[in-house]
């Protein structure tokens, strides 16, 4: 099916229409790849539930249970990442300036949420502070995940 196998064809012999359709095919491949890396809708929700679970669990005030929940969070995140890597079938550089900024913002927001829950729950003795922080962590994680996906998609479609 090869149509252009002549080894010493000069660029001048390539019609502009042929060049344009080749560029269009490249765009098509990039779009296909960009669509492929977008995680299914439950993927970021699962990360959010894992993070929210660890934070909400602190409401019980048991160090043993907390240690187990952190271990479950670590294993869960690793398993999700591994599964997604297998599903997509590519290894790529996920972090550039923009995605790194979203990731840093997400970590800072979660840290602020946890700090606020600690102040309310441990210092002021308010009940349900960790539970509320855990619930808030879920949409926060989903938004950060979808945002990162969209940035990656835009980067791939731009051919960078």
């Amino acid at each position, binding site marked *: *099916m*090869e*149509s*252009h*196998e*002549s*080894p*010493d*064809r*000069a*660029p001048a012999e*390539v019609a*502009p229409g042929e*060049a*344009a359709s*080749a*560029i269009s*095919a*490249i765009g*098509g*491949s*990039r779009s*296909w*790849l960009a669509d*492929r890396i977008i995680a299914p809708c439950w993927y970021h929700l699962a990360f959010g539930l894992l993070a929210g679970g660890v934070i909400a669990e602190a409401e019980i005030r048991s160090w043993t249970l907390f240690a187990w929940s952190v271990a479950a969070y670590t294993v869960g995140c690793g398993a999700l990442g591994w599964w997604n890597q297998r599903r*997509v*079938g*590519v*290894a*790529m*550089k996920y972090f550039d300036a923009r995605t790194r900024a979203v990731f840093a913002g997400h970590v800072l927001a979660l840290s602020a949420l946890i700090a606020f829950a600690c102040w309310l729950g441990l210092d002021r003795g308010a009940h349900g502070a960790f539970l509320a922080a855990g619930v808030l962590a879920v949409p926060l994680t989903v938004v950060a995940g979808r945002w990162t996906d969209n940035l990656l998609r835009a980067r*791939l479609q731009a*051919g*960078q």
Partner: protein
Amino acid sequence: MTTAARFDEIVHAPNRLQICAILSAVSSAEFATVREGLGVADSVLSKHVRVLHEAGYLDVHKSTSASRVRTSLSLTRAGRAAYDGHLAALRAIVTNEAFDASAHHAAMPN
């Protein structure tokens, strides 16, 4: 940094151009993923992979996981340079045509 336009006949073949387009965006991709992207049979992809590999444009890595051999593909430095140069050449061809067409149109009497 601007890439110098360099038309590359090895890269220009439609399927090989698509292979390079996919691999240029990632560090590496599995053989099955690239095959799915191109919508071709294993044998067809293997043929193009061999051509790119022999040209020094493509690395092929094989790893065994759970008794299954997984093949992943990645562009070499030379492959990335060839693809970038070829893409720049294609863009130059299209741009020159657009320029020529507009110049011709401007020269046409009303």
